[in-house]
């Protein structure tokens, strides 16, 4: 029928290259020229120098200085003899086009421009000037007006925030693409605090030539990325985005948070990115069309990504949830939220129901399964084991109220032992308490997904289940 014809037309074959646009030159760089390097403490050119120096060979460039951190400082990039993978540019905006011209002459094919003062403040002339230089020498450019890039695997730290002020997150397989730099920076700190690991972080600012599509393509091919988080205010290349994002989301979960969805937000976006934020309803539809998962707040961007990363091996999970709790109230809230979010409470299969009745006769075998206040580690173990073996449910929502007297810290071993069997996703709800052991932290360290409140857990689960 006509249907297939249309479908084929929409999808079109977009070939994703192995190293799209040669972005490896940035992320796997060894030799980096830092143009605008500085010896003055806390200057951007100084912070960048320190961050890069930890693991890379840096060629500082600054015509006014001879030595920076005991390294010879070059007057221009043209003086450097070695091959440069990319030039990191942090000079005043008005100097950027000239500096790029020199990069072009030095045959540097990749530049990352931190400097701001281009189209985002209405300086179209400077923007065009930079653009023409980039085109003249066929140079790939990240930015301008961005925070930089970060790669925990290649140990590239090209962001202009000091490591004292902003602790970097752990290594992980979530990559984060952000149009906004400030927001990206704040989130990195947040992720470090939450112990959510990161693979790559890309702040791409004004996207003068490399735009969201190039980065999405690259991340979808990146072996160290299993989930992509994307903060965006305005898609630059809508037509290409439709094709690329569809392809990307068929390979890896693509989670999107769109800023500027309200009129107020839109106005802020206008002054902030130098472009109009689009109509939110249209964006919503487009994200659905390309099978991206749209979240409504920043926190969920990473909570959802975290679940995808943790449950990477579970494919096509259905929505029937088994709740196990040791507090009746929590069970009720869970059941309410499951229904409200359009998910389902599983029903026990008759066999497992009988087995549970025999093994824990003091418990009423229903869903939510309330193991009651006198629950022991052993009772949790029996319940978990049986529920994980019950084909009637798809995943377990496990509430542990650590205050009850007959459980102890060994519950961590019980739960993580069960989780290690990798039979089904287990999501935990553990209210934070001041106690001898920080049970939720201990469980998180064992690789479990923990939430403080049931409603957060279920809202995030809904997105994870793509409902």
């Amino acid at each position, binding site marked *: 029928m006509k*249907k*297939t014809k249309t*479908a084929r037309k929409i999808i079109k074959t977009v070939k994703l290259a192995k190293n799209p646009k040669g972005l490896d030159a940035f992320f796997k760089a060894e030799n980096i020229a830092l143009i605008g390097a500085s010896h003055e403490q806390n200057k951007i050119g100084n912070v960048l120098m320190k961050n890069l120096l930890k693991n890379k060979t840096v060629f500082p460039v600054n015509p006014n200085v001879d030595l920076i951190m005991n390294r010879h400082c070059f007057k221009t990039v043209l003086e450097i003899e070695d091959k440069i993978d990319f030039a990191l540019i942090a000079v005043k905006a008005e100097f950027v086009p000239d500096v790029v011209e020199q990069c072009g002459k030095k045959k540097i094919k990749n530049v990352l421009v931190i400097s701001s003062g281009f189209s985002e403040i209405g300086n179209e002339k400077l923007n065009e000037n930079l653009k023409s230089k980039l085109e003249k020498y066929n140079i790939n450019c990240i930015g301008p007006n961005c925070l930089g890039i970060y790669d925990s695997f290649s140990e590239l730290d090209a962001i202009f925030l000091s490591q004292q002020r902003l602790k970097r997150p752990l290594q992980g397989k979530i990559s984060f693409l952000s149009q906004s730099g400030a927001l990206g920076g704040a989130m990195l700190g947040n992720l470090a605090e939450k112990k959510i690991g990161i693979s790559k972080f890309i702040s791409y600012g004004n996207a003068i030539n490399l735009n969201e599509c190039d980065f999405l393509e690259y991340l979808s091919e990146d072996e160290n990325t299993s989930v992509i988080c994307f903060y965006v205010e305005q*898609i630059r290349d809508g037509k290409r985005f439709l094709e690329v994002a569809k392809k990307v989301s068929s390979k890896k979960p693509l989670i999107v948070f769109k800023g500027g969805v309200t009129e107020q937000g839109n106005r802020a976006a206008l002054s902030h990115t130098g472009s109009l934020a689009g109509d939110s309803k*249209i964006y919503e539809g*487009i994200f*659905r069309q390309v099978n991206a998962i749209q979240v409504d707040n920043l926190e969920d961007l990473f909570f959802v990504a975290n679940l995808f990363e943790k449950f990477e091996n579970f494919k096509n999970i259905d929505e029937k949830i088994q709740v196990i709790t040791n507090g009746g109230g929590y069970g009720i809230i869970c059941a309410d939220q499951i229904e409200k979010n359009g998910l389902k409470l599983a029903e026990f299969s008759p066999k497992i129901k009988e087995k549970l009745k025999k093994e824990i006769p003091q418990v009423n075998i229903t869903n939510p399964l309330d193991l009651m206040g006198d629950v022991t580690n052993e009772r949790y173990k029996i319940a978990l084991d049986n529920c994980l073996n019950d084909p009637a449910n798809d995943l377990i929502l496990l509430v542990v109220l650590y205050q009850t007297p007959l459980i102890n810290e060994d519950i961590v071993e019980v739960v993580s032992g069960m989780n290690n069997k990798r039979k089904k996703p287990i999501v935990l709800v553990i209210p934070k308490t001041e106690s001898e052991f920080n049970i939720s932290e201990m469980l998180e360290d064992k690789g479990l997904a923990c939430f403080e409140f049931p409603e957060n857990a279920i809202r995030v689960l809904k997105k994870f289940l793509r409902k």
Partner: protein
Amino acid sequence: MGEKKAKKSQDNLVFTEFKAKEFLKKYADMPKNVLLDPKEVKKTLLEKKLPSSITLPVVLKISSDFIVHKTEENAVKMVCHEIDFFKTLADFEKRLSKYKARGVIVEEYVKGQELIIGIKKDKTFGHVIGLGLGGIFTETIRDISFRACPICSDEFNSMVSDLKFKNLISGTRGKKNDVEELKKIVIEISKIPDKYPKILELDINPIILNEHYCKLVDARIVFEK
């Protein structure tokens, strides 16, 4: 879709109901109608006799390229009784020359769920198609979902499932609406911009869906000059 845009589009080519329906007739069924030209209107009023082709209830509309919003201009009315028919016709007749109207359309009255199908040329994504609740609910409830054109069957389904009031599309109180027909229409309409890239806006509002049919009642198209 936007009223504001209609005003802005004065420099563009606008098809109001008559021409828009002519343009869209191969894409969707429409209510049966007859156009009474000004002479026939006069004659009908004089004879006080319903033309044989007409059975009540019907909807009377002034057909003019100079009326963009018929309701606001009191240029559309549903009539159930003969007495109303002649009263309305007489009222319309007085205003025909003012609107440079081609006459009065007498149209079969169709009843069902009012929906809107719209196309808009979006500056980022190109032509997008919207499907939502139409008629008086369009602006108040704003329940509409969009996709980039053209769409396939699965995309139509997911578009419907995005709507808060999706049940109104499938049918309520045991009635099963002809969603397949709607799907066919939406998919075919989503292909129009490929053929006519100059379309800026296309509003089909309402299109009426019930168990038996899906009929396009009113439409407007704006082409870029």
